[in-house]
């Protein structure tokens, strides 16, 4: 029997029982579609988080005051109880690290902003001119904080796009005076909208020189320091240099925490990647169930067609011919199921993307390949046993059955 004949014979057999074939294909396609849709969801969530972090800016090292790690007892523990604050001088010192490209101190506080008769709560961020470069901020109008304002409490401000919209409406904002807390500041720039990062939106921010913010909130400590390494490869060595500089400035005690965006990103990437795999595994169970269904259906087919198998044997079919015909039939059912499931899954992912546009719910390539591959493999594996049973049938007994 030639392969073409085997294929034709098997497809005719599959087509001869349309209800059985349709149900089988449906079961298999649900399994494959489940894998495709669930991994699309999982991978979409992973991509969403990764994109959020990536918008923080590249090669970023964030310095937080205080040691959040449990490092056991060290000599420093007995000397000081509370961590030292981060200061503008610390930030300035970090610029001496060779692998650190830019540094921006961050001082944060809540205040009120007033223009004309309008008043609203606002978050004030005190920083330096390098912040725009580190956080990849674009300006719609005007300019960002000038470098000459880094050291002095200039009365200038850069406002977020939403603040501009709410307070100025359609009027021009650059050059206007605003009151923030008890200070009068001149607006020198407006940020472009949609500059976001981890829920803290720049759209609702007022950015002022760090000295201005510290004077406004009557403090000389920093919320944190953001440093940018000169390259991605320099991230780890730059981190060590920052630690050395800060340790030297703190009598040998390192009471700061350094977070790299890479580390956060890597962790989330791993957690959500594992989640996607787990979800794919659960969906895979439905594929295994579909595989057992293939076996069941093929076993019924063998019983149903016992007479036909006996006849084929009498006409000179050898065991290979009969085994192949049944395996190919099982494979065809799985293949149709896999194709239908792939289409169904892609449609499902499309619907998810329609309903939640922020979620990039595209099924990952590996999941599609694994889903369709598993469907075919289960069809093959679970098709072998019924096919062998068919091939082993005794022709005399098979022929004596009615039907077929």
């Amino acid at each position: 029997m030639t392969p073409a004949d085997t294929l034709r014979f098997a497809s005719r057999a599959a087509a001869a029982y349309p209800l059985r074939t349709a149900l089988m294909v449906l079961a298999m396609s649900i399994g494959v579609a489940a894998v495709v849709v669930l991994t699309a969801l999982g991978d979409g969530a992973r991509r969403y988080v990764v994109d959020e972090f990536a918008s923080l800016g590249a090669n970023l090292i964030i310095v937080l005051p205080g040691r959040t790690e449990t490092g056991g007892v060290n000599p420093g523990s007995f000397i000081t109880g509370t961590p030292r604050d981060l200061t503008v001088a610390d930030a300035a010192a970090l610029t001496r690290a060779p692998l650190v490209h830019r540094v921006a101190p961050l001082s944060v506080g809540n205040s009120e902003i007033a223009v004309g008769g309008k008043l609203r709560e606002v978050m004030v961020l005190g920083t330096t001119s390098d912040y725009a470069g580190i956080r990849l901020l674009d300006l719609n109008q005007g300019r960002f904080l000038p470098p000459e304002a880094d050291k002095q409490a200039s009365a200038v401000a850069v406002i977020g796009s939403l603040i501009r919209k709410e307070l100025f409406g359609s009027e021009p904002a650059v050059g206007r005076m605003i009151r923030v807390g008890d200070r009068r500041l001149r607006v020198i720039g407006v940020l472009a909208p949609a500059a976001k990062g981890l829920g803290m939106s720049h759209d609702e921010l007022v950015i002022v020189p760090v000295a201005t913010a510290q004077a406004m909130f009557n403090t000389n400590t920093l919320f944190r320091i953001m440093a940018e390494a000169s390259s991605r490869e320099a991230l780890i060595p730059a981190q060590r240099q920052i630690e050395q500089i800060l340790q030297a400035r703190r009598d040998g005690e390192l009471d700061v925490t350094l977070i790299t965006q890479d580390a956060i990103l890597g962790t989330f990437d791993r957690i959500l990647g594992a989640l996607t795999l787990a979800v794919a595994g659960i969906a895979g169970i439905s594929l295994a169930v579909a595989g057992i269904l293939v076996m069941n259906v093929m076993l019924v087919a063998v019983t149903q067609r016992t007479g036909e198998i006996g006849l084929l044997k009498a006409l000179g079919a050898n065991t290979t011919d009969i085994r192949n015909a049944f395996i190919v039939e099982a494979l065809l059912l799985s293949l149709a199921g896999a194709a239908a499931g792939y289409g169904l899954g892609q449609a499902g992912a499309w619907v998810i993307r329609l309903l939640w546009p922020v979620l990039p719910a595209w099924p990952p390539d590996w999941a599609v390949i694994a889903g369709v591959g598993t469907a075919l493999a289960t069809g093959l594996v679970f098709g072998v046993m019924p096919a062998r049973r068919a091939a082993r049938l005794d022709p005399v007994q098979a022929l004596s059955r009615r039907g077929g």
Partner: protein
Amino acid sequence: MAQIELAGIERTFTLGDSRVHALRNIELAVSAGEYLAIMGPSGSGKSTLLNLLGLLDRPDAGHYRLEGRDVTALSGDEQAAVRRDRIGFVFQSFHLVPRLSAAENIALPLMLSGMPPAERDARVARALHDFGLESRARHRPEELSGGQRQRVAIARATIMQPAMLLADEPTGNLDRHTGQEVTELLEALNAGGTTLIVVTHDPAMGARANRRLMMEDGAIVDDVPASDPTR
């Protein structure tokens, strides 16, 4: 040399804990082109003998030589090849594949032999013509009459031009008139040189054969040429 030679054939079945001796010490020689009827009561071993001749069953003891070759020792797949090339079967219940058309049913042995489709189609077209089935070629078995079904089955059995035709009650499911036609068709094939071995209950059909084997309890009790004047 005889086409078929059976020597010392024994076949027993185990049914529950009792053993049934289906064939006892069968000795038989059939020459090419003979027309043989195997007759006897139910359970006498006729069908078992036919299955054995058709290589669908193996004897427990003895030897079966087909065209000078001992076929009892062949493997299952080698026997399948012999069945395909040398033996044609006609069954009482026709045994047509219900989802295939008449032409496709006839083409089955050719397909199993791996013949290219073009050559296959030509042979099937000739067979359809020879058996008067041209207008029924694309019909499925359920759309055919009993006589037409058996003609399709005979066309399928002879498409490989086998050395012998084995027919198990070929007219058992047909009315008298159609049965007569089918019998004549088989006899015409026999006249063309094909050995014809028919298992039948029907004495009228048995009487038409050139040679009759009477079986009882798994043994051949009588072997008579039809022309024997003493019967």
